[in-house]
C-alpha cells in the first residue's frame, strides 16, 4: 500500500505526467506512420531514457507502447496502410468504412475498443503479475532454464509457415548472446581479437539496427510507391446501438488478447488476427465483413490493446518478454540496473505501480488524442520519405552511439540493419533474434547452474514438476505448428484430388 501511495505521489509531479503525455503523443504518431512501429520507436528511444530516472523512463516507454498499438489503426482506417502490424486486421473493415465516408465512425469504434481492451489488460496486469511473481519465487535455475526454453519455443507459434525460421532466429539470438567473455571462466568467445567485444554485444544497438536500420533499407526498396491521401470526416463516436452491437465482440477480444499477451513471445499482431477471425466466426451475419463491419474493427482493436498489458505480465513477473516491444522494455529495465522477475515486486514495488498507472493514463490519453487529433496524426503519412527515413537513420546512429559513446556500437547497429534486411528477404523476422539475444544469458547461466546442481545428470531435470510442465509445453509449442502445417497441406491435397476426380 505504501508503494502504491508513493507511486501516486510520484504521479502528482507534472514532469512525470508530461513525460507520459509526450510518450502517448509520440506513440500515436509513430504508430500511425507506416513502417515506424512502436517497437522501433521504443528501441530508438531507449538509449535516451538512460539519462532519466527509472520511473519516468519506464513510464515513457510503457505509454509509447500502449499508444503505438492504437496509433496504427488511424492510418489503417484512413489510408489502408496499417501503421503497425497489429493494426493490419483493422484495415480489412476500417478502410471500406472510410471509403464510404464513415472514417469518423470507424476511428471512434477503434478508439473505444482500444481503450476498453487497454484498460482490461492493465487490470489483468495488476492482478496476474503479482500472482505469477509469487509462483516464480519457487523457481530455481532449472525452472528458469525450462521457462526460458518455453519462451523461445513459443516463437514457433507466431507463424506456422515460418515456425522453423523463427526458432532458428531465436537460437541465433542466443548464440549472439554468447559473444564476449564467459563470466564463469573468463575466456573470450567469438571476439576475434577485438577487446570491445569482450563485454559482449549489447542488445540496444542490435535492436535499433534490426528494426530501424532494416526498415531504412526496406523503405529504399519502396521509393516508387505513392502516398495515399486520407478521406476523412469529423470523428464521430459510435452510437449506443453500435456499441451494443459490438459489445460481445469487444468482451471476447479482451479475453483473447489478454490470453495471447500472457503467452511469452506472442503479441498484439497475433491477438488482432485471432480477434478479427473470432469476431467473424461468432457473427450471425458475416456478409458485411471485409466491406465495412464495425465488429471487424472492434474485434482486432480490443484484442491487440488487450495484449499490451498482458504481455507485460511475463515480462515483469518472470523476466521473459511477452512481445517484441516488451523485450525492449525488459532491456530498459536491465539497462537501468533493475532485475525483472519476482524480486522486482519486493525490491521496487513503486516502479511497478508507476508502470500500471502510466499505462492507465496512456490508455485514457490516447483516446483523447485519437479523437482530437486523428486528422492531424493521419497527416504524418504525408511526411516525405526522402526526409523522414534519413532522419530516422541519423537518430538510430546517435541512439546506438549515445549509450556507451562508442563507435563500435554504431558499427554494430549498421551491420545489424544490413543483416536484418537480408534475413527479412529470406523470411526471417527480427523479433525472435532480439528475444534470443535478451534471453541468451538467462538460458546459459540457468543451464550451467542447473548442471552444477544436478552434478551433470540431465535426468534430474525430469524430477522437478514445474520443469517437466514447461518442457512438455515447449515440445507442444514446437510441434503444434508443424502438425497444423501438415494437416493443412493434407487437406489441400485431398481437396485438389477431389477436384481432379
Amino acid at each position: 500500500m505504501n508503494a502504491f501511495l508513493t507511486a501516486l505521489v510520484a504521479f502528482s509531479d507534472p514532469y512525470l505526467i508530461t513525460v507520459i503525455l509526450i510518450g502517448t503523443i509520440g506513440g500515436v504518431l509513430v504508430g500511425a506512420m507506416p513502417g515506424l512501429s512502436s517497437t522501433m520507436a521504443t528501441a530508438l528511444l531507449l538509449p535516451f531514457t538512460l539519462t532519466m530516472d527509472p520511473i519516468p523512463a519506464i513510464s515513457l516507454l510503457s505509454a509509447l507502447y500502449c499508444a503505438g498499438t492504437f496509433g496504427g489503426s488511424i492510418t489503417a482506417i484512413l489510408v489502408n496502410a496499417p501503421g503497425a502490424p497489429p493494426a493490419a486486421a483493422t484495415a480489412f473493415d476500417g478502410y471500406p468504412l472510410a471509403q464510404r465516408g464513415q472514417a469518423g465512425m470507424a476511428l471512434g469504434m477503434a478508439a473505444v475498443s482500444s481503450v476498453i481492451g487497454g484498460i482490461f489488460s492493465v487490470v489483468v496486469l495488476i492482478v496476474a503479475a503479482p500472482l505469477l511473481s509469487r509462483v516464480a519465487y519457487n523457481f530455481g535455475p532449472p525452472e528458469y532454464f525450462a521457462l526460458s526454453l518455453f519462451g523461445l519455443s513459443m516463437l514457433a507459434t507466431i507463424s506456422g509457415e515460418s515456425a522453423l525460421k523463427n526458432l532458428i532466429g531465436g537460437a541465433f539470438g542466443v548464440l549472439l548472446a554468447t559473444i564476449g567473455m564467459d563470466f564463469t571462466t573468463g575466456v573470450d568467445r567469438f571476439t576475434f581479437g577485438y577487446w570491445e567485444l569482450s563485454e559482449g554485444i549489447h542488445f540496444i544497438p542490435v535492436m535499433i539496427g534490426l528494426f530501424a536500420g532494416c526498415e531504412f533499407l526496406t523503405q529504399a526498396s519502396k521509393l516508387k510507391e505513392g502516398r495515399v491521401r486520407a478521406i476523412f470526416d469529423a470523428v464521430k463516436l459510435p452510437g449506443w446501438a453500435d456499441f451494443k452491437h459490438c459489445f460481445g465482440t469487444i468482451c471476447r477480444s479482451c479475453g483473447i488478447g489478454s490470453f495471447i499477451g500472457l503467452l511469452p513471445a506472442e503479441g498484439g499482431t497475433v491477438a488482432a488476427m485471432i480477434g478479427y477471425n473470432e469476431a467473424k466466426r461468432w457473427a450471425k451475419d458475416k456478409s458485411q465483413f471485409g466491406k465495412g463491419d464495425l465488429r471487424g474493427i472492434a474485434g482486432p482493436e480490443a484484442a491487440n490493446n488487450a495484449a499490451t498489458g498482458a504481455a507485460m505480465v511475463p515480462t515483469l513477473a518472470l523476466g521473459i518478454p511477452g512481445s517484441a516491444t516488451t523485450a525492449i522494455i525488459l532491456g530498459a529495465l536491465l539497462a537501468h540496473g533493475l532485475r525483472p522477475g519476482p524480486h522486482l515486486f519486493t525490491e521496487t514495488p513503486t516502479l511497478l505501480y508507476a508502470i500500471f498507472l502510466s499505462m492507465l493514463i496512456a490508455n485514457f490519453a490516447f483516446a483523447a488524442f485519437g479523437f482530437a487529433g486523428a486528422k492531424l496524426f493521419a497527416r504524418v503519412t504525408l511526411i516525405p520519405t526522402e526526409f523522414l527515413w534519413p532522419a530516422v537513420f541519423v537518430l538510430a546512429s546517435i541512439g546506438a552511439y549515445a549509450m556507451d559513446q562508442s563507435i563500435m556500437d554504431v558499427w554494430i547497429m549498421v551491420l545489424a540493419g544490413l543483416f536484418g534486411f537480408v534475413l527479412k528477404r529470406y523470411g526471417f523476422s527480427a523479433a525472435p533474434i532480439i528475444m534470443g539475444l535478451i534471453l541468451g544469458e538467462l538460458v546459459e547461466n540457468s543451464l550451467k547452474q542447473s548442471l552444477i546442481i544436478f552434478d551433470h545428470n540431465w535426468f534430474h531435470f525430469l524430477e522437478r514438476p514445474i520443469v517437466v510442465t514447461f518442457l512438455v509445453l515447449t515440445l507442444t509449442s514446437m510441434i503444434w505448428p508443424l502438425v497444423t502445417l501438415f494437416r493443412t497441406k493434407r487437406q489441400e491435397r485431398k481437396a485438389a484430388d477431389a477436384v481432379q476426380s
Partner: protein
Amino acid sequence: MSSKPSVDRAAPAARFPRDMVIGFCTVVLCAVAYWITLSFADAPAAVAQNVQPATFPRLVISVIAVLALALMVISFRKDSRPGKSVPAMVAMTAAMMLAFVVAFEAIGFILAMALFCFFMPVIWGERRWHAVIPFAVLFPGAIYALFAFGLGVHFDAGILGF
C-alpha cells in the same frame, strides 16, 4: 534489357527450393561457427566445473544446425517462387549507411550527419533544394545541440573542431 535479366537471375533459386538454399547456407555457417569454437581456450577444471566455455555455444550451434536441416527437409514439400531482385537503390542506401559510419569516425559526427542529410534525400530522388539544404543544415544542428548540450553526450572533435 527490361525485365528478362532479372527473371534469369532468379532461375537458380527456382530450381532449388529457396528454403533449402537457406537451410544449406545456415548449416555451412554452423560448421564455420563450430570450427571457431575449437579455438576457444580451455578453462581449468576447478573453474569450469565441467562446463567449458565452448560447451554452450556448441550446443546452440547444434540446435541451429538441426533446425536448418529440418528446414531443408520441409522445403521439398513447398512450392518455390523466384525471389525479387534487390533494387539498386537499396545497395546505394546500404553503401551510404557504411559511408556514414566511416565519416563519423573520420570527419566528426556533425559534418558526417550534414553530408548524410544532404546526399541521402538527393540519392532518393529529392530535388527540392529549398527543402534539402535547410534539412541538411538545421536537422544535424538541432540533433547535435540536443545531444551534446541537452543530454551531455560527448562527441570526439571532428575536422571542424567540434
